[in-house]
C-alpha cells in the first residue's frame, strides 16, 4: 500500500484541525491523568521505601518485637551469638519540629561504634572541627547530627538549637554537625536527625530499651537464621528490614488501586472521544470512501487508513499526555503524600520519580486505547459499499437496523455485570467488581441508540405540542442521526454516570462515617499528645496526668486508650487496648451483630478480642473464630468476640481490654484518654482547665466530641480531593465530546438549515429546532447517566468498597448531585447546540446551497 494514500487523511486533518484536536486532547487528558496518578503513587511509595532501605542500610536481618521495644540486654546477648557477624541497636521515633519550624522529623538513635558495617554517614565538617563534632555528638545529651538536605531546607547551621516536640513535651536539641548519607537516600525526604543511642533513650524516655537490632549473619544460608530465631525469647521476631516497605504497600494498596481505576476511567472517556472523532470522520467521508472503493481501493486499505488516523491520534495525544501527565504528577504528588500521611503513615516526597517503564506503559495504553476505539468505526468504513457514492442515507439505515442488536448486547453486558458483581476471589482486590463497573458503562453505551430512537419518537408529539413544528423536527432529527448523536450521548452519559456514582458513593460514605463518629465514639473530651497523627503511636500521656485526672471532681469516667501498630501477614494492623468496661457504660462499639454492652463485658471477663470489620473482611474472620496475634509476649491465641464497624484508615484493628493488652505488652503507657464529664455541658470549661493545667508543661490536645468529628470529616474530605479532581477531568473530556458532536452535527446539516431558511422558515424556528434537538440529547445523556450512575454507585458501595477496604457503607440518597448534573448538562447542551446553529444561520445561503 502506497504511503501517499495517507495524504487523504492528512489533507482532512489540515482542513479541520480543530476537530482532530479535540479527539487528540481527549486521549491526552486521559493519558495525563492516568500517568500522573501512577507516577505520584509510585514516587510517594518509592520515597517511603527509600527511607526504609536508607535506615536499614546493609542490614540483612532485624530483630524486633511487635509494637514494643526490646530490652537493652538482648543486644549484648545477640552480639555474642555464634551466628551473628555484626549487630547494631537502633531506636527511632518521629518527632514534630516546633516553632519556628514545622513538620515531622525522624530521630534515629544509634550506637556509633556498632554502626560501621551497616550505615555509612559522612560527617560534613572537615579537619579538626570533625573531631569536635564527634566529641559533641558523644558527650552532649542534646546533641544531634542533622541531614544536609534538612539543614538546607531549614537554614540551620551547626551550633544552632532546634526546638522539637518529643511526645507531649517540648525539648530543645542542639545541632552539633551535619551528615550526608552515602547514597543520598534519606527517609522522610531528608528530615532526619541522628543521636547517640544513650542520649536518644533518655530523650525518648526509653531507658534500657531499643526499638530494633539490625544484624549481619555469618552465613547467608537460611539454616543459620533459623538457628538464631530458635534462640530468641518469645515475642522477639527475626524479620527482613525490607518487609516493612512491603507491609506499608499492603496497607495502601487498596487506596492506590482505587485511584488508578479512577484515572483509568478518564482514559476510558477519552476512548469515547477517539471513537467519536473517527466515527465522525467516517460518516463525513462516506462519499469519498465509496468513490475510492469504486476506483479500486480494497476494504483492507480503507481499514488501514482509518485505523492509522486513530493511531496517529493516539500517538500524538499520548505523547502530549505524557508531558501533561508529568506536569500534573508534580501537583498530584503533593496531594497524595499529604493524604497518605494523614491516612496511613508520614510520607514526604518532593521529587517525582519518573520511571521510563511507567511512561512507556501509559503511552502504549493510550495507543492501545485509540486502536480499540478506532477499530469499530474503521471496520464500518471498510464495509462502506461502493454505492455510498450515490446514496447518503445508507449508513443511517444500517445503523437503525442494528439498534436492536446493540440493545440485546447491552442487556447481555448488564447481566454479565450482575454476575461478576457477585463474584469474590479470596482476599484479592475486587477485579470482578471493576470489570462489572466497566460492563455497566459499556452496556449503557450499547443501549443508547435504542434509547435515542425511542426518545426521539416518543417525544415528537410532545415536541409538536410544546414548540410547534420546530419541536417535532428537532425530535425527529435526533432519532434520525443516530450514527452521530448516539456516540456523544453515550460518552456524555458515561461521564455523568461516573460522576454521579462517585458522588453518591462519597456522599454516602461521608454520612456513614459521620453516623459512626456519633454512634460508636463516645466521650466528652479526647485528651492526648496526638489524636489525628499517624506518626504518633509512640507518643504517650505523661504518667503523672492520670492520677490527677482521676482526682478531678468534674470527671466521672476515664477511658484508657493504647494503640500499637504491628506487622500482620501482608500489612500493618493496629492493636488497641481500651477500658472495655468504661466503653460498655457509654454506648460501646458499633457491632455488626450482637448487643454491644454484653459483648464488651463478656470479652473483658473471658480475655477475648474484638476485630474491626476491615480486618475481618480482609483476612476472612467471623465471630467466634480464633485469631493468632503476634505480641511481645509471643503469639497469642485469641477468640473473636465480635466484629465492629470501624472507618479509621491507618489500619484494620484488633481491640482488647486494656488489662489484657498490658499483660501482653508489659507497659503502662497510654496514648490518650477519653473523659466523660459529670456535667457534659461544661466541656468548654474543662477543656480550658486542662489547657491551663498542662499547657505550660506539655503539648497536649483537648478535643471536644465536635472537634473530633470535624477533624475526622476534614481528613475524609481531604482524602477525596484527588478523587474529585479526577472526576472533573472525566467531565471536561466528556464536555469536549458533546461540544464537538454538536458542532459537527449542525455543520453537517448546514445545507439543510440553509435550505429550510431558503424556503422561508424563520431563523427563530430553525434555532428552536436545533435547541430542541441538543436539549433533548443532553437530557437523554442525563437520564442514561443517572441510571447507570445509580447502578454504579450501588456497585461501588456494596461490592468494590467492601472488597477493597472492608468497609460497610450505608447507602444514602443524595439528590443534590442529580439536579446539579442535570442543570449543568442541559445548559451545556443548549450552548453547544446554539453556537453552531447560530453560525450556520449567519453564513451565506447561496454559498452553502451552491456547494457540492
Amino acid at each position, binding site marked *: 500500500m*502506497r504511503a501517499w494514500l495517507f495524504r*487523504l487523511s492528512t489533507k482532512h486533518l489540515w482542513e479541520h484541525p480543530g476537530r482532530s484536536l479535540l479527539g487528540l486532547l481527549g486521549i491526552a487528558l486521559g493519558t495525563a491523568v492516568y500517568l500522573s496518578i501512577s507516577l505520584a503513587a509510585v514516587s510517594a511509595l518509592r520515597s517511603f521505601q527509600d527511607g526504609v532501605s536508607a535506615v536499614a542500610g546493609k542490614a540483612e536481618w532485624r530483630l524486633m518485637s511487635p509494637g514494643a521495644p526490646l530490652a537493652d540486654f538482648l543486644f549484648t546477648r545477640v552480639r555474642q551469638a555464634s551466628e551473628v557477624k555484626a549487630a547494631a541497636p537502633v531506636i527511632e521515633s518521629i518527632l514534630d519540629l516546633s516553632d519556628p519550624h514545622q513538620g515531622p522529623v525522624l530521630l534515629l538513635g544509634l550506637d556509633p561504634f556498632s554502626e560501621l558495617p551497616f550505615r555509612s554517614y559522612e560527617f560534613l565538617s572537615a579537619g579538626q572541627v570533625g573531631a569536635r563534632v564527634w566529641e559533641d555528638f558523644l558527650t552532649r545529651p542534646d546533641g544531634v547530627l542533622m541531614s544536609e538536605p534538612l539543614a538546607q531546607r531549614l537554614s540551620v547551621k551547626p551550633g544552632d538549637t532546634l526546638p522539637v516536640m518529643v511526645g507531649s513535651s517540648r525539648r530543645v536539641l542542639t545541632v552539633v554537625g551535619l551528615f550526608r548519607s552515602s547514597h543520598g537516600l534519606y527517609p522522610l525526604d531528608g528530615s532526619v536527625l541522628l543521636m547517640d543511642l544513650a542520649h536518644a533513650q533518655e530523650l525518648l524516655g526509653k531507658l534500657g530499651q531499643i526499638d530494633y537490632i539490625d544484624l549481619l549473619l555469618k552465613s547467608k544460608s537460611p539454616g543459620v537464621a533459623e538457628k538464631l530465631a530458635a534462640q530468641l525469647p518469645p515475642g522477639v521476631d527475626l524479620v527482613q528490614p525490607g518487609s516493612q516497605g512491603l507491609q506499608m504497600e499492603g496497607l495502601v494498596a487498596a487506596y492506590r488501586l482505587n485511584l488508578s481505576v479512577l484515572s483509568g476511567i478518564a482514559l476510558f472517556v477519552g476512548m469515547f472521544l477517539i471513537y467519536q472523532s473517527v466515527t465522525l470522520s467516517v460518516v463525513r467521508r462516506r462519499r*469519498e470512501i465509496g*468513490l475510492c472503493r469504486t*476506483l479500486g481501493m480494497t476494504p483492507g486499505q480503507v481499514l488501514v487508513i482509518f485505523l492509522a488516523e486513530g493511531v496517529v491520534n493516539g500517538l500524538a495525544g499520548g505523547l502530549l499526555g505524557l508531558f501533561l501527565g508529568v506536569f500534573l504528577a508534580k501537583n498530584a504528588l503533593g496531594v497524595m503524600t499529604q493524604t497518605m500521611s494523614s491516612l496511613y503513615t508520614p510520607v514526604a516526597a518532593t521529587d517525582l520519580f519518573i520511571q521510563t517503564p511507567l511512561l512507556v506503559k501509559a503511552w502504549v495504553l493510550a495507543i492501545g486505547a485509540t486502536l480499540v476505539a478506532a477499530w469499530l468505526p474503521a471496520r464500518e468504513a471498510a464495509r462502506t459499499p*461502493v454505492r455510498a457514492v450515490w446514496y447518503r442515507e445508507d449508513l443511517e439505515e444500517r445503523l437503525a437496523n442494528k439498534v436492536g442488536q446493540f440493545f440485546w448486547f447491552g442487556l447481555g453486558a448488564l447481566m454479565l455485570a450482575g454476575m461478576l458483581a457477585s463474584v469474590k476471589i479470596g482476599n484479592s482486590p475486587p477485579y470482578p467488581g471493576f470489570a462489572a463497573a466497566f460492563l455497566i458503562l459499556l452496556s449503557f453505551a450499547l443501549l443508547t441508540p435504542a434509547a435515542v430512537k425511542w426518545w426521539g419518537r416518543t417525544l415528537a408529539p410532545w415536541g409538536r405540542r410544546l414548540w410547534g413544528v420546530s419541536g417535532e423536527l428537532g425530535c425527529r432529527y435526533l432519532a434520525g442521526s443516530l450514527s452521530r448523536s448516539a456516540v456523544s450521548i453515550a460518552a456524555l452519559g458515561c461521564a455523568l454516570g461516573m460522576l454521579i456514582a462517585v458522588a453518591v458513593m462519597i456522599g454516602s460514605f461521608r454520612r456513614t462515617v459521620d453516623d459512626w463518629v456519633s454512634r460508636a465514639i463516645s466521650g466528652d473530651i479526647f485528651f492526648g499528645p496526638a489524636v489525628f497523627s499517624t506518626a504518633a503511636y509512640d507518643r504517650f500521656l505523661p504518667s503523672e496526668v492520670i492520677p490527677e485526672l482521676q482526682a478531678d471532681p468534674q470527671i466521672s469516667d476515664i477511658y484508657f486508650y493504647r494503640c500499637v501498630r504491628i506487622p500482620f501477614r501482608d500489612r500493618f494492623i493496629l492493636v488497641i487496648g481500651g477500658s472495655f468496661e468504661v466503653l460498655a457504660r457509654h454506648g460501646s462499639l458499633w457491632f455488626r451483630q450482637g448487643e454491644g454492652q454484653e459483648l464488651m463485658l463478656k470479652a473483658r471477663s473471658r480475655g477475648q478480642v474484638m476485630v474491626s470489620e476491615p480486618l475481618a473482611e480482609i483476612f476472612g474472620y467471623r465471630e467466634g473464630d480464633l485469631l493468632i496475634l503476634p505480641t511481645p509476649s509471643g503469639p497469642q491465641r485469641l477468640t473473636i468476640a465480635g466484629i465492629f464497624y470501624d472507618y479509621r484508615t491507618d489500619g484494620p484493628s484488633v481491640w482488647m481490654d486494656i488489662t489484657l493488652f498490658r499483660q501482653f505488652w508489659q507497659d503502662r503507657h497510654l496514648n490518650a484518654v477519653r473523659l466523660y464529664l459529670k456535667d457534659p455541658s461544661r466541656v468548654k470549661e474543662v477543656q480550658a482547665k486542662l489547657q491551663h493545667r498542662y499547657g505550660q508543661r506539655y503539648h497536649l490536645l483537648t478535643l471536644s466530641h465536635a472537634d473530633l468529628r470535624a477533624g475526622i470529616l476534614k481528613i475524609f474530605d481531604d482524602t477525596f480531593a484527588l478523587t474529585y479532581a479526577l472526576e472533573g477531568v472525566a467531565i471536561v473530556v466528556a464536555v469536549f465530546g458533546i461540544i464537538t458532536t454538536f458542532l459537527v452535527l449542525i455543520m453537517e446539516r448546514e445545507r439543510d438549515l440553509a435550505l429550510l431558511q431558503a424556503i422561508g422558515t424563520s431563523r427563530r424556528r430553525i434555532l428552536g429546532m436545533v435547541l430542541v434537538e441538543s436539549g433533548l440529547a443532553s437530557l437523554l445523556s442525563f437520564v442514561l447517566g443517572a441510571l447507570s450512575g445509580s447502578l454504579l454507585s450501588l456497585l461501588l458501595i456494596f461490592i468494590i468498597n467492601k472488597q477493597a477496604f472492608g468497609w460497610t457503607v450505608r447507602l444514602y440518597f443524595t439528590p443534590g448531585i442529580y439536579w446539579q448534573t442535570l442543570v449543568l448538562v442541559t445548559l451545556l447542551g443548549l450552548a453547544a447546540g446554539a453556537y453552531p446553529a447560530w453560525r450556520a444561520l449567519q453564513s451565506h445561503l447561496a454559498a452553502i446551497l451552491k456547494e457540492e
Partner: protein
Amino acid sequence: MIVLREVSKTYQRGAVAIHALRGVNLVIESGEFLAITGKSGCGKSTLLHLIGGLEPPSAGQIVVAGRDLSRLSEVELTLFRRDLVGVVFQTFNLLPLLTLEENVALPRVLQGASFHQARDEARQWLAEVGLSDRRQHKPHQVSGGEMQRAAIARALINRPAVILADEPTGNLDSGTGAGILELFAHLHQHHRHTVIIVTHAPEAAAHAGRVLRLHDGQIQP
C-alpha cells in the same frame, strides 16, 4: 467482450420490491461505443453499475473480459474495478481536497505505482483532455466541464478495458456537454476501449456505434 444473461435486479424496500432490471440479455463487443437511453427510472444506471461490478445482480450472469463477476470475491471485484473499469459520474465526484493532478493519479497509486510515476502519467492524461494548465487547481477552482474532463482522465489512467459513463453531460450546458461527448469519441478512436455511456443527449447517438433503449427494466427491440 461483455455478456449479460438473464440479468435481473430487484431492490427490496421493506415490503415493496422494485424491479429495476428484468431479464436483460446483452452482448457488447470489445471496443464498441454503446449509448443507453431511456426514461428516468427505467434502470440505466442500474445496468451500468452491474456491468462495473459496483453492485451484484439479483439473478443472471455477467461476464466482463472473461471474468464471471458473480464468482469474484469482494477483493477480486475491487481489483477488477481498479484495473479493468473506468467510471465517469454525472456529478464528477472528484475529491475536493486533492488537486486535479492528484485526483487523476489516485487510481494509479491504488494500482501500486509510486506517486511520482502516477503524477507523471496523470499529467499526460490531463494534457490529452486539454487541462495541462489546470493540473494544480482544486476541483472547486475549475468549471464543470473541466471537472468532467479531469474525471475522464481519471477513468482512463489505468487503461481500463471498459469505460462506464452515467450521464456525463447531465450537469453541463449543452455546448460543454457536446465537447465532452466529442472527447469521449476522440479518446475512443485513439485507445479503442469499450465505452458504455448513459445519456439523454441526442448527439450521443451520433458518436455511438449502437444505441440501446431501456424501458421499464427491459431492453426495447
